[in-house]
């Protein structure tokens, strides 16, 4: 039997198994979605929601003032919408303008007129709140000036009419226009782009696809169990096919399917986020070595566990451990020296490094991949030998 016939037969077999193919589709969808969401968050910058429960003049003026800041984007939302967005980490903070805001401010009070809710991952809630509080204070000072002027004039037997209050407000506005203006200009210096590379949309997509790739390979590793079956071995012998050929062909099929999934995910991500599609090719060598290492892991795991049931159980565990310990979806904390050192044995660690510097990680990835593949082949061969003896 020719190898290309075997390959075609194996491909057909894979395509007939919708269950395991579904994981590649899911991996593509999830990785693209995570990358697009991350890109969206990066582009919108800091977003602050305003919930106007007051509806008065001062509340509207506060919202207008907040819109004038270019350091964050203001969105007017309902309370429920804002809470949902905060929980989904799509907002930095939400400001609730309480119902008595305008009334209290007009009387010269500002205490407890707002409520600031922040996202659990807000990086600088105190800093975010400062422009909001300052804007309230500017409005409050206007109101306070009107109140104290009125009281002062009343004490001295003079009138302070609504027309006077209006004239005073116009005077403040005129002084604001004609007075000194202090501008804060932001200048972007050159350099520092390297740090950003590892966090771009394609990189995020590659990270997630790589993590979910292990799940797909382990769950769909029934072929490793099949090649040890007595009946299959007899048929293989009759057809003159050697065991290494079966292993090679069977490994090649999930590898090619995973690569196809990578191209679909990468190109979709590039198309949706406007990144150059060529970037998909930049990470191809590293991903190839990563998948090669994962095949070794799969071969080893399947040879040790012996049944599909155990593979189903171990797949989420291995996916979680690989994602976390290799640094693909989380950076290991600074104190975890031992884990960081141990993570060098994981293919994902080298892929993660390759996303920052594609060439420097390749030797490590190659050694790691070869080590896992050798371990997988040795254990698999030993197991086959044991099965033959039985």
């Amino acid at each position, binding site marked *: 039997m020719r190898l290309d016939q075997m390959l075609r037969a194996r491909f057909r077999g894979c395509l007939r198994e919708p269950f395991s193919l579904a994981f590649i589709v899911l991996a593509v969808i999830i990785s693209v979605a995570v990358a697009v969401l991350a890109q969206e968050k990066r582009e919108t910058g*800091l977003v602050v929601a305003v919930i106007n429960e007051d509806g008065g003049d001062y509340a509207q003026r506060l919202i207008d003032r907040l819109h004038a800041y270019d*350091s*964050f984007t203001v969105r007017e939302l309902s309370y429920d919408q804002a809470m949902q967005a905060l*929980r989904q*980490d799509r907002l930095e903070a939400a400001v609730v303008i309480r119902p008595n805001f305008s009334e209290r401010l007009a009387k010269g009070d*500002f*205490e*407890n007129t*707002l409520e*600031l809710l*922040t996202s*659990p*991952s*807000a990086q*600088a*809630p*105190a*800093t975010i709140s*400062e*422009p909001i*509080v*300052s*804007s309230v204070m*500017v409005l*409050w000072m*206007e109101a306070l*000036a*009107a109140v*104290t*002027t009125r009281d*002062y*004039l009343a004490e001295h037997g003079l009138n302070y009419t609504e027309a006077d209050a209006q*004239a005073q407000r116009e*005077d*403040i506005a005129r*002084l604001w226009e004609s*007075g*000194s203006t*202090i*501008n*804060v*200009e*932001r*200048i*972007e*210096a*050159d*350099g*520092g*782009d*390297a*740090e950003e590379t590892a966090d771009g949309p394609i990189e995020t997509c590659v990270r997630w696809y790589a993590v979910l790739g292990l799940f797909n390979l382990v769950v769909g590793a029934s072929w490793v169990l099949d090649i040890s079956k007595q009946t299959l071995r007899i048929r293989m012998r009759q057809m003159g096919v050697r065991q290494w050929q079966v292993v090679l062909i069977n490994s090649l099929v999930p590898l090619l399917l995973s690569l196809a999934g990578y191209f679909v995910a990468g190109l979709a991500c590039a198309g949706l986020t406007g990144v150059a599609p060529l970037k998909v090719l930049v990470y191809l060598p590293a991903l190839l070595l990563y998948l090669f290492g994962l095949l070794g892991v799969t071969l080893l795991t399947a040879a040790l566990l012996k*049944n599909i*049931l155990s593979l*189903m*159980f171990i797949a*989420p*565990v291995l996916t979680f*451990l690989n994602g976390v310990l290799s640094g693909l979806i989380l950076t290991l*904390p600074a104190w975890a020296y031992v884990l960081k050192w141990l993570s060098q044995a994981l293919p994902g660690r080298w892929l993660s490094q390759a996303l920052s510097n594609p060439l420097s990680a390749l030797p490590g990835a190659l050694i790691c991949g070869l080590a896992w593949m050798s371990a997988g082949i040795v254990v698999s061969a030993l197991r086959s030998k044991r099965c033959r003896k039985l």
Partner: protein
Amino acid sequence: MRFLRFDFKRLFSGKALVLLCLLSPILVVFIFTSVVSPMIYSAKGLHFNLAICDEDGSEAVSTFITQMLNSQALLSLVDAYPVKSTEDGLALISSGDVSVFVHVPKGLFEKMRSEQAVQVEIISTKAHALEANLTSMALTSALEIVGKSQNVMEAARQMLLEKGVSETDADRYLSDATNTAIKRYMTRREALGDGGPVSPVGEFLPVEYYISAIFVLFAALSMLPLIHFTAADSSGAILRRGLLCGIGTGRFFAARIISGGVFVFLVLTMLFPTALLLKLGDAMLGGTYANNIGALALALVLTALCFSALALALAVWLPNESVALWAGFFLVLGMAAFCGALVPEGALPAWTAAIGRWLPLRASMRLLSLSLFRYDGALFVRDVLKLLGFSALLLPLGYLGLWRRGRGV
């Protein structure tokens, strides 16, 4: 009883699988609590270095800079380093020693007094856009409040003069009003009442939420061996032989539900030491955990019963072993996604959360969280009733399916 013993032996025959079922949740919980949990749904503790070059050098500007750097907006956020020249600041930026460089130009104060436009520059690289944004936010708001409040008070003084108040009295008023404003301004953060972070995991800490989620997820995964054995038995020799020997559908059903329940229960039992450790640690630290071991035991029994019934129902109604196994696997993954075991319920889109409400995994997760960390009788009873409802639906469904298979034999 003999059949039940046989069923136990059969279910626990794969030692590797049993060990995997029992140890996996512990390993995952250990890695999660030590590595993952401190990194999710918590502030990243942003802190950066900032260089300032004050070319103006006037006392007023120096005071303003000191006050701004010591304000709540920046105090915990930055470490500030004064530099002598723009070149020094730019060198620090390009070397990466500081994230942001603030340049205050010469003659800033004098220009302000003569009502000319002035410009302060914030310089950073693209990689530190967030830090530059935060600095700009703090600086802009601080400068605005200085400029605007001066204008407001000046306008009030102008009004008094227009009303015929003498210049001396107007100046005294201005001074008094400014002092009052400054005093009140110092307490400006009182504008913010209650508030704080909104967590997607509700009243629980992420680590509390995910301990329950991980154990329930593994309990659900432990349905797979039950599905596998039940699907194989009910379509083959075991059921046939059992029926011929007088072991009716009822006995087969009862034995499988009990042995399956025990299997799932065993996976969940490692929560008991977790609960005891939490209680012990909490008592030592004087914390406020309100766990209830009795409630936890009930939650585990109900979860085990419900998942055992679900596994049996799936195995007997789906056509063959392979389909039942894969369907069970996808169901577990689907339940994990929709019920908030992967992404917390609060962060899920409304439609997924609505679907999750009709699946038993969420009720189990809530029962475990409540009994381990924040026991609340009313909420606990509600979820107990939900799980009982699911069991009441799944048990007859499983029995009917088995009876149907038995008739076919």
